[in-house]
């Protein structure tokens, strides 16, 4: 059995940074430059807000200065991230690039790719989407069928990608393709590319969320020709490259804070008039949140030490994303409210945003059932 998580706290030095982020956010709110919302790391697309974060040095924080980054620790980045999420700030534009495309480029990209993309991403001038999932491959990512065929000096791409966040508004995506016909080793023959979303042959079709928001897209590639410069990492190493990102993707604060603003709004609404039952419920949620954050910080610290806590990260995501839903389910039973999308009342509005986004919490980043399979393997049960 190999699951174990050493309890850890953030270093005291991060707290100076935390104060700076809080100051920035309170100024943004005072100037009404954003409206706090739930699940804004998915739905809160605001290029200017992202640009202002870039100006503060809070994008690409952990990347080397040579590539426009700021050479800070992953735990510093954790502090900035959790502060932004707790405030319900619109962080969707840079989210994917900052969390995973950038680190992938840093790890697998050529020098030219790093110099080309990373500085623009860190300044808030270039944004990324994900090109992994397909209409025919949900949880079974290795079944992707988008093809990359060799042509003179490059590759020709044909296929369809789905759930591409903000592909209609961002600049590039990292595309996972099958570059060789499938063999018995399903994980072989996959290759990643960095592709310009405005390239000829690409069509982007909106997929609307339950709330009506246009966030997801289907990206259809019809004989898209890209040069060899677009290859990311090694030909045939796509699977290993994709899965190496997962611990970062699964254990971050976005896996338990997506509905947090609703809990703050509940406290706001009830104030000191909260009765015993409401106090118990709030306290219970707060205690669970404290434990989840403790786990998430402990995983972040393990990552920072160079460990690979993949199983522990899967645990955080399973618990945390269920909590995100439980939180709003409990709130609706604590107060008289009828959630309404875009309602003037803050709590009603936040609940509506949460419920309409809720089915996604336990699906994105690997469904919770798949993650429990990962955990079971880590426990030696499969």
């Amino acid at each position: 059995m190999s699951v174990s998580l050493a309890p850890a706290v953030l270093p005291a030095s991060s707290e100076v940074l935390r104060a700076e982020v809080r100051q920035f956010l309170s100024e943004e709110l005072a100037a009404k430059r954003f409206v706090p919302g739930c699940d804004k790391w998915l739905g809160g697309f605001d290029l200017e807000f992202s640009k202002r974060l870039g100006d503060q040095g809070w994008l690409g924080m952990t990347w080397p200065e040579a590539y426009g980054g700021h050479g800070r620790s992953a735990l510093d980045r954790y502090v900035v991230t959790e502060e932004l999420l707790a405030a319900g700030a619109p962080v969707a534009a840079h989210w994917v690039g900052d969390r995973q495309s950038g680190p992938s480029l840093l790890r697998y990209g050529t020098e030219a790719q790093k110099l080309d993309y990373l500085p623009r991403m860190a300044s808030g001038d270039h944004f990324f989407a994900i090109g992994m999932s397909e209409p025919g491959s949900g949880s079974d990512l290795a079944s992707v069928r988008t093809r990359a065929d060799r042509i003179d000096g490059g590759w020709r791409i044909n296929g369809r990608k789905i759930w591409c966040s903000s592909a209609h508004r961002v600049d590039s995506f990292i595309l996972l393709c099958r570059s060789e016909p499938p063999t018995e080793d399903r994980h072989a023959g996959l290759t990643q590319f960095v592709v310009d979303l405005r390239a000829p042959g690409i069509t982007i079709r909106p997929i609307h969320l339950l709330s009506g928001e246009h966030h997801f897209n289907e990206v259809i590639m019809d004989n898209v020709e890209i040069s060899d410069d677009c290859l990311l990492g090694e030909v045939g190493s796509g699977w290993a490259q994709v899965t190496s990102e997962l611990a970062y993707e699964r254990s971050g604060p976005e896996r338990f804070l997506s509905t947090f603003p609703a809990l703050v709004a509940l406290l706001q609404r009830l104030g000191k008039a909260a009765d015993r039952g409401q106090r118990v419920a709030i306290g219970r949620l707060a205690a669970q949140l404290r434990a989840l954050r403790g786990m998430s910080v402990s995983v972040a610290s393990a990552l920072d030490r160079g460990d690979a806590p993949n199983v522990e990260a899967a645990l955080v995501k399973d618990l945390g994303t269920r909590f995100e839903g439980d939180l709003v389910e409990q709130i609706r039973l604590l107060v008289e409210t009828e959630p309404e999308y875009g309602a003037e009342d803050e709590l009603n509005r936040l609940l509506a945003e949460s419920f309409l986004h809720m089915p996604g919490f336990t699906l994105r980043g690997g469904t919770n059932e798949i993650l429990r399979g990962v955990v079971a393997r880590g426990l030696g049960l499969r």
Partner: protein
Amino acid sequence: MSDEIRTLLLDSLERLLRDQCTPERVEAAEQGGYDPELWQQICDLELHRAALPESQGGVEADLSLVTEMLKLTAASALPAPAAEALLLAPWLVTLAAVDLPEGLVTVSPAGKALSVMGEDGQLVISGEVSRVPAGRYADWLLTVANSGDGECLLLLRQDQWQVTEALNLAGEARDTLLFNEVSLSAEQAVNIPGGSAEKLWQLGALARSAQLVGALRRAQTLSHTYVQERSQFGRPLAKFQAIQQQLALLAADLEAASVMTGLAAMGFATGDNGDVAAAKVQAGQAAGMGARIAHQVHGAMGFTQEYPLHHATRRLWSWRDEYGSETHWAHRVGEQLVNLGADEFWPWLTA
């Protein structure tokens, strides 16, 4: 304290428990939950003094270490009041700067139920203290009471009380001790700082959280072993996704409780920041959920006294209600947050 001493203490305790604290022995200590010979072996290793300062023969074991020890004793269902004797009693005597009494020392958080009359050096106590762990076996009871001039630590002797026996769901003694106008000698009541009773309550909750984590770890281990050995429909239970998913849920709740308890132990000295409350809520919740899953994957086998799972699960069902249930601690957190106000919620969480 050095890592070397830490490892030494944990290894020697683990070895002793593995060799001596067998399921048969635990079974034999049912109806009271105390095995004096086994406890003597713990004392022979001086483990009951580990948390004391060096001047008292201890090694000043910190809370992280002592809670690790409690996880081990709980995982083995050690028939003894481990939390009371390894952690709470040493903490109280250190606080009061008195010697640890000889013999089996237990602790109760319910001393405020006692009436303490009289002047300095001439105190008389009356009343009863209920649900005292190992009350019938203890040589000493340490508890915190209110005297005329604030809180005091009482060090009460076995010949000063009458016992009414009671058990928790795990068969551990939780006795009522009756004090009928008992005169105390001067050294039996020691003034301690105000707020100590509250601190004892929190430390007890932390100790129970650690014990819950330890007992749940045991239920988990038994479950993993069982589902790999037991075959149904031609394959081990472990190969069924339905079983894997259940055990993954157990693991998630257990790790959350474990991390939270570890954080509460690390931060205990710096004051009440909500970590203990969060630990007890999480551990209590994990206990109920984990016991349910462990029994479910064991099928009818785990539901009998012939199989040792119940040594873990009956403790889970008992300890989660001791030193405050999830509701008790959640209410405290809720009170604190309502008083702080919405704007201070996030700062509270990240403090």
